[in-house]
């Protein structure tokens, strides 16, 4: 009975979202107050309906209601309680419901926080978000109903994909979705501005914290996904340029550009139509990402069963959103109201930042979609290798790294870049010297190592130079916006160091090991002691023991596992590692090689790899910090 109630609630939500999409919008066109003020109550009702429906699905998981097809497919009576709640978003239908719920939460947050805005704007923004909710609810109800019954009911569930039975996965999708869906606020705002035909600096000021929040969550979501891939997939890599990763990375890049261009538009009025275009692009790319992941059109290391019907639905929705918003953009681009600026100014630097970030996004988009394009043109079945992305990304991001310290130190409107360069020169020289030393000291890949040291010293010193300049000035004050910027830019430095060092100095060995045999990697010695069988709650594990020595001193014993889950035939690798600031020791079991206890082992030493995720965390926290700037405080209209 309860699953039916859940379904009825979903249908009610579909209806509510349709009302939210039409009534306030119509009211705004007709200047009808009653219709416009229906936006807020409709938003709250929509959230309530979706949350209740979601709660009922969670409940079905808790009570092991295997008469619900989705529960039977993705749960099991042996599943640990923690994963029963997270299994709700472990597969397509439930994760879509989570998507919708997060969207409704954003809608409600906008409804609550937008009292300072004119009523017509609020009505339009909420209506546009209502349309998005309608699209996704229709998708859920018509193609991916999570409450579908299984007749007769299954006696035992199939189990949650073992790959997903991990704490990292509990937070990865929700954070990612918070980011994806968060860009819908900037998008809805852009559409509202286009309908209105003008942009107001006041609205941009209001929209900025939302973009920052969305981008911060997206950063956390991607970083967590990368960390999860690192320790769960058992390959020891942290980024594979896989289509599904690219799908989340594209909105991230455009979102980073959007954060900067919104700041320019808010403060100087320049780039206003560019900001609108980026807002549309960021959300469209989020939808494209959903399409790529859900439709299975691309071969990816991520396993998502494909369903052409679902793919077509999202593709149609994507075309509708992109098509109509770009048409609207072409038809009603508001007049630029920006102040003119010299080519030597902070505006130009931010323009370059935006061009490079969007170019990087276009590059990733091309590489991701190229196999589809080639297939459509009958050029054969191809895939684009990671070096394409890696090389071009490095080329495009190098100037960004070089220019980061210039941004904060240069003035709006007009400045002499020569003067800024003179101020930064000593620090540039210092960073270059450190890089030179690294170039000669590096045991392998000297150029990458040198780049790693150069980027971390250059960005950090350049950013500190800005901090020092602020401190020296009489009115030395750090706004939240400024502190957030400093934190995020330093995060870029930390990230660059981690990524480049891990690329340059990692040592990896795949070995055939007999019990008692040891292997030297750099300064470390790995001693393989053998593999034992151990039972787990819903699996049986083969657990290896590997002692790691630094010289004669024993550092740790690592216990990597191979798990055979009771429910299905699949075997899972659980790598084990000892993390550290300067290096990770990483061991994964391969497969048994003979009857005498010999095993294939993957032994890695990864210097500074944790800095990658720490840097991403700093960027996200920086983005969040900016939201608390006093200028973004809600003021009631006078």
């Amino acid at each position, binding site marked *: 009975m309860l699953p039916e109630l859940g379904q009825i609630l979903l249908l009610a939500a579909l209806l509510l979202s349709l009302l939210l999409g039409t009534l306030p919008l119509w009211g705004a066109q007709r200047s009808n107050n009653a219709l416009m003020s229906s936006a807020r109550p409709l938003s709250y009702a929509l959230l309530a309906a979706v949350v209740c429906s979601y709660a009922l699905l969670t409940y079905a998981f808790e009570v092991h209601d295997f008469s619900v097809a989705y529960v039977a497919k993705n749960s099991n009576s042996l599943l640990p309680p923690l994963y029963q709640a997270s299994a709700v978003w472990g597969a397509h239908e439930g994760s879509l419901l989570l998507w919708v719920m997060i969207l409704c939460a954003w809608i409600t947050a906008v409804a609550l926080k937008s009292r300072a805005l004119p009523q017509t704007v609020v009505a339009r923004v909420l209506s546009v978000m209502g349309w998005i909710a309608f699209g996704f609810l229709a998708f859920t109800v018509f193609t991916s109903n999570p409450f579908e019954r299984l007749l007769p009911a299954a006696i035992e569930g199939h189990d949650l994909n073992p790959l997903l039975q991990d704490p990292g996965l509990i937070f990865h999708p929700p954070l990612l979705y918070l980011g994806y869906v968060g860009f819908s606020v900037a998008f809805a705002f852009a559409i509202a501005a286009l309908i209105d035909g003008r942009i107001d600096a006041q609205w941009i000021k209001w929209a900025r914290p939302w973009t920052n929040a969305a981008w911060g969550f997206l950063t956390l979501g991607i970083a967590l996904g990368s960390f999860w891939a690192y320790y769960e997939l058992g390959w020891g890599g942290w980024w594979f340029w896989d289509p599904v990763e690219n799908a989340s990375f594209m909105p991230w890049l455009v979102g980073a550009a959007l954060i900067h261009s919104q700041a320019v538009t808010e403060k100087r009025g320049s780039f206003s139509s560019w900001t609108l275009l980026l807002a549309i692009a960021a959300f469209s790319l989020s939808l494209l990402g959903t399409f790529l992941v859900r439709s299975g059109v691309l071969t990816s290391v991520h396993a998502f069963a494909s369903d052409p019907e679902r793919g077509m639905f999202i593709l149609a929705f994507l075309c509708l959103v992109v098509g109509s918003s770009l048409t609207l953009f072409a038809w009603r681009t508001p007049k630029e109201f920006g102040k003119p600026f010299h080519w030597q100014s902070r505006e130009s630097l931010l323009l370059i930042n935006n061009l490079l970030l969007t170019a990087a996004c276009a590059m990733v988009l091309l590489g991701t979609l190229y196999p589809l394009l080639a297939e459509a043109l009958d050029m*054969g*079945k*191809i895939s684009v290798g*990671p070096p*394409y992305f890696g090389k071009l990304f490095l080329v495009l991001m190098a100037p960004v790294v070089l220019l980061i310290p210039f941004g904060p130190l240069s003035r709006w409107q007009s400045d002499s870049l020569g003067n800024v360069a003179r101020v930064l020169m000593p620090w540039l020289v210092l960073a270059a010297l450190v890089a030179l030393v690294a170039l000669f000291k590096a045991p392998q890949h000297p150029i990458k190592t040198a780049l790693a040291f150069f980027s971390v010293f250059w960005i950090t010193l350049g950013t500190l130079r800005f901090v020092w300049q602020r401190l020296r000035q009489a009115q030395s004050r750090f706004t939240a916006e400024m502190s957030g910027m400093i934190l995020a830019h330093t995060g870029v430095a930390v990230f660059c160091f981690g990524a480049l060092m891990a690329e340059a100095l990692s040592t990896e060995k795949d070995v055939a090991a007999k019990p008692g045999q040891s292997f030297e990697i750099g300064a470390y010695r790995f001693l393989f002691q053998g593999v034992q069988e151990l039972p787990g709650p819903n699996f049986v594990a083969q657990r290896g023991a590997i002692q790691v020595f630094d010289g004669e001193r024993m550092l740790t014993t690592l216990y990597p596992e191979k798990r055979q889950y009771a429910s299905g035939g699949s075997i899972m690798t659980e790598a084990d590692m000892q993390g550290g600031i300067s290096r990770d020791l990483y061991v994964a079991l391969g*497969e048994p090689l003979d009857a005498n206890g010999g095993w*294939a082992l993957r032994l890695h030493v990864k210097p500074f790899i944790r800095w990658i995720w720490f840097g991403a965390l700093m960027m996200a926290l920086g983005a969040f910090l900016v939201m608390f700037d006093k200028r973004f405080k809600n003021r009631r209209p006078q």
Partner: protein
Amino acid sequence: MNPVRKRRLLFVALVLAAAALAAVFISMALNENINYLHTPTEVRTGKAPESARFRLGGVVCNNSVTRTESTLDVRFRVTDGSRFIPVHFNGILPDMFKEGTSVIATGKMQGEEFVATEVLAKHDETYMPAEVAKGMSPEMLAKMSQGPAMHSLNCGAP
């Protein structure tokens, strides 16, 4: 030409130059890093490159996986139902690698053997990558969809 126009012209020229440079870079990088997917039949009929890297897609033949005792050296056959190719790999196979499931191996032909540097298997045991499924013979696909009947799979001719 007045200075404003001159500056604009310069700007447009710079943008065009940057775009052209980007196009060259991108097409070069794409050309270097594209890997084609071929089925064993295509390899046997000479449609796959003889010395360049490509991806070989198909199903691992039953009873074809042999390992040189106590080493990482492993050999197996990949088939599309009508022909098969022997594959040689020196490394750790993915978790989902099993006889009778689909794989994509990256590498190149060396003599009669396909020497793989990377072997990917799907995370999901019932799911076959669309691009591999397209190259399968119809009888093979029908058999695979029946599940347990896998053991009677025909590995095809060499």
